[in-house]
């Protein structure tokens, strides 16, 4: 790919990007959110047409008007969100759009046999071609995606954040699959945020920043710190705002709280402090926030100021939740910044403060209240969610992964704002799977394990302390 450029709605997302990958090579593409990685890959897959630049495959220049053209040219892409039909079988998904025919009719037997042999070739025997995709785990679905790519006879396979949805032991499986693709002489473009994977798999890595090519380097010649510097354009300082100087009265307390997923939860949130919540996936972190917020309420135990039975009760009692999935649960994407910011006050029927002031306070820039939230970056969307809760001036604000999918600049702004809110007397709870963030921000860290509080660690505890507590079997 040479000189690729692309703009959406007048916003330039890619400019003059070059990328080359050889057969049998794993080439990683890294960059921060919004660097243009996914757009570049979608151009290669024929989803978007480039404004400038050319694509050459095996010495021939190609141009794709439809994903079908890219498929025919041997490009297969495995998207971050899987492109599988849950209601259809594995084989039907693998051959979707290219069902084998026999005398003009779909040859189901051939489809099943071909799928079965591709599965066997990858050493996958936990499911078969006739199993419906909706019964498969995320990792198994990824195998289906890879089989689909193989069935296309793809010579270039693009994987967009393939490990984002996988558990640790499934990542190993993915590594094996990638290496098998490599052995077959397939060129693999591997997009990832996670530098460990880049070094484990790729021989070369291309760094994008703000839609521009920063550099293409060989992984044997750089360290992960070098890559981070290239991605961020500066040394990634571990800057976090200073901690609370004084902690005030108890704003919220739970004693012996429990429900389907939680048991015997006891904790206090005080004015002025930020309490971090850590735990493995499935340990009940989000459940805890949702229980305190009345979305999946506690069925046992006591909570002050009240144990909410519904979100409405919790909000009326001054408890807010910045959810983990802002697009699905935090914002009405098609509505304006103003309407989103006023969602809560309108729902509760309280008089809100000026939207302009609020947007200034959350440092939204450019602050255009009439813009649809859909078109904002992840960081700006998160600021709108914050503005939404600030209209209520809650006593307690719960954050679930507040900086996921947010760029570095917005991240720092959100961290500053959280501190500011705490200093104004709010009690803040922050769930995060990012340990440096937890350690940098929290005045103490509550660690959950299997729906229970495994322990509480003071500020300044190390990552090891947290992991040990979160993962160990015996209680402390």
């Amino acid at each position, binding site marked *: 790919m040479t000189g690729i450029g692309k703009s959406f709605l007048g916003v330039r997302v890619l400019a003059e990007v070059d990328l080359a990958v050889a057969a049998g090579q794993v080439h990683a593409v890294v960059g921060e959110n919004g660097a243009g990685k996914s757009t570049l890959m979608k151009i290669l897959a024929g989803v978007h047409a480039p404004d400038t630049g050319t694509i050459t495959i095996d010495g021939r220049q190609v141009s794709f008007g439809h994903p079908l053209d890219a*498929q025919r040219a041997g490009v297969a892409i495995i998207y971050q969100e899987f492109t599988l039909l849950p209601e259809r079988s594995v084989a039907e998904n693998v051959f979707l759009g290219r069902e084998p*025919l026999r005398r003009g009719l779909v040859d189901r037997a051939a489809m099943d046999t071909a799928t079965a042999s591709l599965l066997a070739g990858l050493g996958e025997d936990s499911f078969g071609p006739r199993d419906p995709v*909706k019964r498969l785990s995320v990792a198994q679905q990824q195998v289906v995606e890879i089989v689909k790519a193989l069935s296309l006879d793809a010579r270039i396979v693009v994987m967009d954040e393939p490990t984002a949805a996988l558990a640790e032991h499934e990542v190993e499986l993915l590594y094996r699959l990638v290496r098998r693709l490599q052995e077959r002489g397939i060129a693999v473009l591997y997009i990832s945020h996670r530098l460990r994977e880049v070094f484990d798999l790729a021989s070369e890595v291309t760094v994008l920043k703000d839609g521009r090519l920063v550099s293409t380097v060989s992984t044997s010649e750089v360290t992960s710190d070098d890559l981070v510097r290239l991605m961020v354009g500066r040394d990634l300082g571990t800057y976090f705002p200073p901690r609370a100087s004084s902690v005030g009265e108890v704003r919220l307390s739970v004693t012996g709280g429990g429900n389907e997923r939680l048991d015997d939860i006891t904790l206090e949130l005080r004015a002025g402090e930020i309490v971090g919540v850590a735990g*493995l*996936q*499935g340990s009940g972190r989000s459940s805890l926030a949702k229980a305190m917020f009345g979305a999946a309420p506690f069925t046992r135990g006591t909570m002050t100021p009240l144990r909410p039975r519904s979100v409405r009760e919790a909000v009326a009692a001054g408890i807010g939740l910045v959810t983990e999935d802002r697009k699905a649960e935090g914002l009405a994407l098609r509505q304006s910044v103003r309407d989103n910011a006023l969602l809560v006050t309108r729902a509760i029927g309280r008089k809100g403060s000026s939207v302009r002031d609020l947007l200034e306070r959350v440092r939204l820039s450019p602050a255009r209240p009439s813009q649809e939230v859909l078109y904002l970056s992840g960081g700006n969307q998160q600021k709108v969610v914050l503005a939404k809760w600030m209209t209520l001036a809650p006593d307690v604000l719960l954050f679930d992964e507040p900086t996921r999918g947010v760029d570095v600049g917005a991240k720092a702004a959100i961290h500053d704002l959280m501190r500011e809110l705490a200093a104004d007397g709010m009690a803040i709870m922050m769930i995060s799977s990012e340990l*440096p963030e937890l350690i940098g921000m929290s005045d103490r860290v509550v660690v959950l394990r299997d729906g229970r509080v495994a322990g509480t660690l003071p500020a300044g505890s190390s990552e090891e302390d947290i992991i040990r507590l979160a993962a160990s079997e015996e209680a402390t």
Partner: protein
Amino acid sequence: MSDNLHTTPAPEGVALPGSPGDRKVGRARPGPWSGLGSTQVVYLALLATIVVGWILVAIDGGNLLTLETVVGVQQRSAALGIVAVGQTLAILAGSLDLSVAYLISLSSLVAAEIMEAGSVPGAITAVIAVSALVGLVNGVVITKLKVHAFIATLGVALIIKGVVDHLYDGPAGRVPESFQHLGYDRVGPVPVSALLWAAVAVAAWFLLSRTRYGYRVYAVGGDPDVARLSGVRTDRVVIVTHILCSLCAGIAGLLLASRLGAGAPTVGTDGGYDLESIAAVVLGGTALAGGRGGVAGTVGGVLLLAVLDSVFNQLEVNSFFKDVVRGVVIVAAVAVYARRAGRKRL
């Protein structure tokens, strides 16, 4: 709201490792009913309705399963059945068609007028041409003008209504005796109209399960983006589907003209074929959002509605009460499917 356990670890920095045990293979829990698809459920419901209906009618001193009633059920359901097969295709592809009722009226008039002029083959050809054209318009408006199917087909329905109401204020044309065999003859206990319905249903089943077109219908209805990213030309699939759906309505129009002996501007709307066909499809377990279901369920749904009708007729129940029961049955069926679908996704 469920706790999203499969959280994506944060971009940079050290993410906590997922615990190995927290994600088992997502097999559905085996429950007493989990082996049954919605098609089996609708046929079980049909069987139950027949048994209960037979008992109720027997208590009332009648017999539900006489030759007369069995033939009646088939005859009454044939036209709705044919429309519903077409509607199944449209709904499976993630669309729907509200224009079928007016198209049926139009087809009956076109057929009867041309037959009166003397040509039965000419009439059939004309009906096929007219309905294919209506389907094409529906499909093109939906895919190229990007008008939601509900509005697009409602608009086309109103256009047909306007034309028909302008030209006719009562039955018109005349269907010759020879063509009326279609509506009234039977082979043993099976009316010819039911055979026609069966042929349409088998053809649709064959298309859906054995041809590329059918696979694409499921793909487009299941998720149009996924279909497109897999190289399916989704617009074509939707257009072809609407043509087939309208052809089914045209065939139903021919059948009703043969039954009436003439064309009638209200035959489609009087039968309520638009909403009834959608109800039958949904009752048969096809998801209104598309991508899941099939013709077999629809046939069961149509038969279930017809048997209910027959039972109520024999019991001489107030017809308003009949509608109440039908409404309850449809809503209950969809609620049952929704529960089952929800459980599978655990």
